């Protein structure tokens, strides 16, 4: 199966997924309002008030399920949640049909198709285009059966095919819209990622040359200051004195300590010192076993982005990061605790980073108090 068929916007564009979550709530509220308004509108046709109220309750339940399922904290959204929400919405359409059975003059003022369609559309950022289309088609099939059942009471005397088309057009149109949105945004995101990867690889070459120079300049400066003059002196001397041997021992120890520190540091230490120096926010990393090195390349940017963001705009006064392997080395746990600064971040803002982390297989929990922002990442190594 093609990659694009199996992916959602939430997976390929996690920030877009987080941004779209409130839209599901808006869709749910509009659906509930529509069901109440249209039930009142055709109340004269309602034969079973219980079914009418049940229909509205089903709409509210479907909206609640959709909204809660799409919350960033519950990412990733799964296809069974889509089907559950759609099933409840279809239940609402059936309840509405039961409430007006035998007296429904116009299918046009039924809320069922619209509610199903709006819910499917609002879940488009979280679902694959194929599952959206499948959900829409199945719902439309159920609505077609209801349309045939309503034919006897129709004021327009239209034929069954026309009634089916009228009753399913809203759900089919909105499902198609959702599917087209999902397919387009996934396709565009993947195309951009391919392009970005190619650019990054190309750029790495240039970066590499600059980094090699700065690395060796750094090391050479250490060497040239202490070690190189000493070695050069020994090379040109006739004899090695006791003082030379002592000095060599001392320099060897010094160099060994420096090398050991270099080996045991990881990209996270380098990141902390780089951000700390640039932003004037102290960042302490406690990673005695160099566990941060076990994070995969795509799992590092969310943590980098979070640290960079937390350390800017006075969001934090200081940051502590503890990295440890747990469960016999199976789980890598990264604890980021930021002492809140004058502009402490909101939960919603930090959730974005967790959403991106979830998209690359890193689970995360967030705890915000007045004093601290605590983010815990867990990754099954």
């Amino acid at each position, binding site marked *: 199966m093609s990659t694009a068929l199996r992916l959602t916007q939430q*997976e390929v564009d*996690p*920030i877009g997924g987080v941004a779209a979550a409130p839209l599901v709530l*808006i869709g749910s509220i509009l659906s509930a309002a529509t069901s109440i308004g249209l039930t009142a509108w055709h109340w004269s046709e309602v034969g079973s008030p219980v079914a009418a109220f049940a229909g509205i309750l089903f709409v509210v339940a479907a909206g609640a399920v959709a909204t809660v399922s799409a919350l960033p904290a519950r990412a990733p959204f799964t296809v069974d949640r889509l089907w559950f929400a759609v099933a409840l919405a279809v239940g609402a359409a059936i309840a509405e049909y039961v409430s007006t059975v035998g007296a429904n003059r116009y299918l046009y003022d039924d809320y069922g198709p619209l509610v199903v369609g709006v819910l499917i*559309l609002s879940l488009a950022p979280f679902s694959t285009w194929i599952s959206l289309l499948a959900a829409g088609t199945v719902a439309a099939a159920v609505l077609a059966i209801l349309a045939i059942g309503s034919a006897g009471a129709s004021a327009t005397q239209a*034929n*069954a*095919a*026309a009634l089916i*088309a*009228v009753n*399913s*057009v809203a759900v089919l*149109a*909105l499902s*198609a*819209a*959702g*599917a*087209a*949105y999902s397919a*387009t*945004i996934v396709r*565009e995101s993947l195309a*951009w990622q391919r392009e*970005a990867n190619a650019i*990054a690889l190309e750029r790495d070459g240039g*970066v*590499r040359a600059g980094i090699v120079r*700065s*690395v060796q300049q750094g*090391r050479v400066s250490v*060497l040239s200051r202490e*070690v*190189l003059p000493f*070695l050069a002196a020994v090379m040109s001397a*006739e*004899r*090695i004195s006791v003082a*030379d*041997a002592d000095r060599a*021992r001392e*320099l060897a120890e010094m*160099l060994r300590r420096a*090398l*050991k520190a*270099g*080996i045991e540091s990881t*990209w996270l230490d380098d*990141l902390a010192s780089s951000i700390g120096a640039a932003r004037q926010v102290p960042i302490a990393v406690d990673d005695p076993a160099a566990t941060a090195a076990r994070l995969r*390349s*795509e799992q*590092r*940017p*969310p943590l980098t*982005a979070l640290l*960079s*963001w937390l350390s800017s705009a006075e969001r934090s006064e200081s940051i502590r990061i503890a990295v440890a392997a747990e469960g016999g080395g199976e789980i890598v746990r990264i604890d980021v605790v930021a002492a809140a600064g004058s502009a402490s971040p909101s939960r919603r803002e930090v959730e*974005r980073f967790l959403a*991106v982390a979830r998209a690359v297989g890193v689970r995360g929990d967030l705890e915000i108090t007045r004093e601290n922002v605590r983010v815990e990442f867990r990754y099954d190594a």
Partner: protein
Amino acid sequence: MTLGLPEHLAKASLSRALASAGHAAGAVCLASAMVIAVASIVVEPVGEIGPDRQAAIAAFVLVGVQAALFALVAFHPSVTLTVVYLLGGTAVVYGLTVLVMAPGNGFETTNNALLAMPRTALLLVGGAGVGSRIAIAWATLGWGLGEAAAFLGATAAGAAWAPNAAAAAALGIVVITRVYDAMTRSDARRETALHRASQQTRELVIRHDYELRAIARLHDTALSHLVAIAASGSGPVDERLRTAISHDLSLIVGRDWATEHAEEAEASGARTGPGGANAAAGASLGTRDGSAHAEGDPLRAGRGGPTTTVAAPTGTAPLADAFGVARDAGLAVNVSGAPDVLAAVGPRRRAAIEAAVAQCLMNVARHAGVDDVEVALGRADGEVTIVVVDDGRGFDPERVPDDRIGLRTSIRGRIEQEGGRARIWSRPGVGTTVMLAVPEGGE
């Protein structure tokens, strides 16, 4: 990489995605309208009244025209085609309103399902340009024109006009999604700055990689000399040490020594500097049938089987630097297998193997307390394997102090950076075996 769309692309991409959504919904509306028209042509009405067949054919043609224009503007969204579609669609809505609102069809006002379909497709034009404002403007224009056409059509048909609720709902959905998109699109992406973070992370990883290489090189050169000087105590400078220091200083100063690229290694091997180890000329590699060298030759045949005798290294010969290190340290190397198996790996990988083998030989010379060492080379299962064996003092690998970093950086680190593995077996009093294996190929 799963970082999503960057800020500068999000506007265009989301706008295109929303326009595609509108086009898909509009296409379904028009297709449904055509299905209803066809059904009205081919199926007899179920009651006494119903749609007129001639009117149904006319409606089918009108919807077909709108669908053709819609497809044009969807695939070629230009201002001209958008305007053509809006004007053509308005005419279609007018015509359909006249047909649908004819007496006998049972519709009380223009607020009905049949007119909702072309009306909705009219406002879902998408249109030329990118961004929420322009999209809302085109949609509103489509809705307004459709409403005006419905009003005129209803007047012509003598029917009652009422705003179409479905079309208004569709406009509402377009406006809500577009406004929401415009409000939320940029801030989150800009503040999260994921792509900048990704770039920064890549740079950090590259830097760390080079630092590890630099550390390995430093360990092999400066640190080993310092240790040798400290161990030698007072007395005349050993000539081999003097030569080795001179060689390494020439490698370090003024060159890109941190890269360890093979071409540089080769260049250094080819260079004839004062006292440079690689300047030693007369290297040759030849295969003999296990016969031993003349007394005093530091590199002699192996303990059994077909072996290769290395008289002296050259800069380009396999393991030349490593054997040079052994020779300088007074260590005889018994080689078995063909050193040219190293031709199966890329230059950088080969340089890493050679440096790791050199460190192994250096360790044997310093710590094993023996005068000879076995080096076996082989190639199997897509890997090149080199085994260095000595019968010396050995050590307990579990008890190597933390601050001894030669095994970690100069041997294991180098090999693992190239996707290979290094295994070490050693027991005090028995000897040490180091096996280095790297995949064939590589850079």
